[in-house]
């Protein structure tokens, strides 16, 4: 049997719910400011100042929501699996709570990517839904999130639920590249769309800079809501400990 590795002390500090709760409380405002500034800036730039697309006109401005949401939805799944693996291997409570918090956030982000994709599709293709490779992969990603979320809520024991969710998300992470590859391949076979929405050669800087701002802004936003959810989760699970009692009484 392999002995468990020794990790640096800060790693184990992260495992302490109280310490994590406090550090997240300190980090929260900074990320919140970052998220608001970047997203407002990026949205105004993208909506009002970036030039229109020569083919799609102004409907392309949906890209500033669609692409960041899609990127985040995928990153979030990866984070969920990594956090799940950490909680399985090192039995770290906080990692389990982070993994649990990821599922609903990721699902809403995937939903946002799908909704904006569909809305974008109407002026571009003339229909609300096209079996485009990206949209289809995103739909499957949403299914994967729903699976993890349902499994979580079906198991009453929180610890068991966390472990089961972690195993499922790890299985999902192994599958995601295969799914992506197979869907892309399937799409080239049944070529439904003449051009893809988001892959275009050489976007000028005044078009992609706002996109970059929005992507970074979305990451900050994700950090904020993940910390909010994890903090709520920490409080609920640690309600028997003294520090939560003090915190509740002080409020």
């Amino acid at each position: 049997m392999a002995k468990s590795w020794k990790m640096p002390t800060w790693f184990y500090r992260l495992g302490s719910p109280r310490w994590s709760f406090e550090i997240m409380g300190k980090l929260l405002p900074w990320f919140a400011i970052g998220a608001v500034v970047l997203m407002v800036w990026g949205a105004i730039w993208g909506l009002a100042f970036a030039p229109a697309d020569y083919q799609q006109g102004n409907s392309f401005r949906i890209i500033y929501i669609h692409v960041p949401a899609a990127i985040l939805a995928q990153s979030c799944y990866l984070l969920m699996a990594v956090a799940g693996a950490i909680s399985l291997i090192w039995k770290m409570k906080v990692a389990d709570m982070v993994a649990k918090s990821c599922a609903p956030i990721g699902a809403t982000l995937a939903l946002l990517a799908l909704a904006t994709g569909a809305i974008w599709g109407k002026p571009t293709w003339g229909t609300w839904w096209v079996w485009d490779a990206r949209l289809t992969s995103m739909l499957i990603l949403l299914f994967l999130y729903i699976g993890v979320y349902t499994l979580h809520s079906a198991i009453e024991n929180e610890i068991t639920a966390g472990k089961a969710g972690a195993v499922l998300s790890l299985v999902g992470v192994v599958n995601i590249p295969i799914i992506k590859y197979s869907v892309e391949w399937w799409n080239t076979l049944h070529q439904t769309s003449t051009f893809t929405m988001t892959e275009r050669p050489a976007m000028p800087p005044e078009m992609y800079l706002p996109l970059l701002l929005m992507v970074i802004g979305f990451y900050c936003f994700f950090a904020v809501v993940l910390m909010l959810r994890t903090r709520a989760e920490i409080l609920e699970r640690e309600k028997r400990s003294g520090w939560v009692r003090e915190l509740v009484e002080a409020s």
Partner: protein
Amino acid sequence: MFFDSFSDFLAMGGHGFYVWLAYAIAVAIIIYNVVSPLLRKKQFIEQHKRRLKREQRLAERQAAVESGEQS
């Protein structure tokens, strides 16, 4: 500014409905993600506070009963 007037900006060259609908959904989802954990936390704190008070009351009454028995 890419647009000539504010009404042009709202119209988005005829695609206004789609663009604004997409942004509205985005705002809704962002707000949901921020508000729901905050609500949950608030709810938890209220419930927990009530529970702690109830436990305290019980403990006080227990103590009162015991001291009553002794006297």
